[in-house]
């Protein structure tokens, strides 16, 4: 029997801040971020688990937030593109994407940045092949990827030097 009124309370830490909300269990994490918390940096592209525009980190692991229920994040830690900069200073990835034209329309960019962040968290010196595989779950319809790969490589270098 369907019971549309069934609701659950979730407690999710997003970019270091804790949020408690009562939601329907069918709410997707991406909708939770955008609609409930107003964090619209995370984009919905395909909404069918393919394009990666909705990529965020869940407990440090890279996921597609259109394919995760908000209840799966209950009690857990989420990082979104809004959490990349700190004290008004851009993350190296944000700077190199901007400087090296790692974006055109920018629709894929939040997901690209989060996929790239998780890649560099696990491997500070990826080869070009590893970078390309690392963003294989993210589609960009504008750039042809060349400048995205360059930007990730440059950010990795900067972060190693810091």
């Amino acid at each position: 029997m369907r019971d549309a009124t069934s609701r659950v309370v979730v407690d999710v830490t997003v970019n270091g801040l804790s949020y408690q909300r009562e939601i329907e269990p069918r709410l997707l994490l991406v909708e939770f971020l955008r609609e409930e918390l107003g964090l619209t940096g995370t984009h919905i592209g395909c909404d069918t688990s393919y394009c990666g525009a909705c990529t965020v980190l869940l407990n440090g692991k890279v996921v597609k937030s259109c394919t995760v229920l908000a209840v799966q994040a209950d009690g857990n830690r989420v990082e979104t593109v809004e959490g990349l900069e700190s004290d008004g200073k851009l993350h190296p990835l944000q700077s190199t994407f901007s400087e090296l034209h790692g974006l055109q329309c920018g629709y894929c960019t939040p997901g690209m940045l989060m996929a790239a962040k998780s890649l560099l968290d696990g491997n500070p010196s990826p080869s070009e092949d590893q970078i390309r595989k690392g963003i294989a779950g993210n589609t960009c319809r504008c750039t042809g990827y060349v400048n995205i790969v360059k930007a990730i490589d440059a950010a990795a270098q900067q972060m190693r030097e810091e």
Partner: protein
Amino acid sequence: MYPAPFRYHRPASLEAAIGLLGKFGDEASIMAGGQSLIPMMKLRMGDACEVIDIGRLPDLSFVEIRDGMLCIGALSTHASIAASEAAARIPLVQEAGGGIADRQIRSMGTIGGGLSVADPSGCWPTSLRTLKTSVQVRGPAGARSIAIADFIQDSYVTTLQPGELVTEIRIPLPAANTGSAYVAFKRTAAAYPTVSCGMELVMDGQTCTSASIVLGAAGPMAVLCAAAEQALVGREVTETSLGEAAELIVAASDPPADARGSAAFKRAMLKTLVLEAGRRSLARSRGEQVKGGHRYA
């Protein structure tokens, strides 16, 4: 896109999960990583009214060697298996886990889910069928062990009884001079294989003493062919003998023509994959380090 409304349950123990499955019967849907269930619910396929989230059940996420076997907890993610040193003991297993979809899906998706969905193009059903895998399940009547050949009964159909859950996958460690590989052809990362091939070869010097070859996405279920395996056993593994084995098993396959390709294209690609899996398996049986990875369009 929203799934239709459902009630959400997060049992704290395996016993509680089995109890909920019994209570809700046909209305229950199991959710492990959600990477097959959520896309289906969003498309309003199936009828998930009572979703039972087993994703946080304790003690079901491990990859370890125990009693001469590689033992993998049902909730182990594809990513954790690909990164595991224990799983590296059987290259085919690591190759299967590391080649599923993309990093995002691999972070969440589990081996228990991938096997239980029993998609004929799924990587776990094909790769694990190549080995002497057994599937441990728990249900209201207790625990039982099912040989992989009996576990999957048809496309998307397993022998799991109502209330039963997969808890662990066990694979005997390979004998010396054994090599294995799993190779798929994929249109892109975030897509199921167009076709795939798993292989395991046991060698004695130049002579092959045992061969297992399985094709995936080449029919409603995994395709095996005794004649193809016999084409290798007792012989040297060369391009010629591998080619003969490939001809035989591909003749026994029945790949569907669909958006991923025509039947003729898939047959041609399957032959290529058998050769590739054979070369990698042979090299690994000699202790050579061979890079894994799929072929992409």
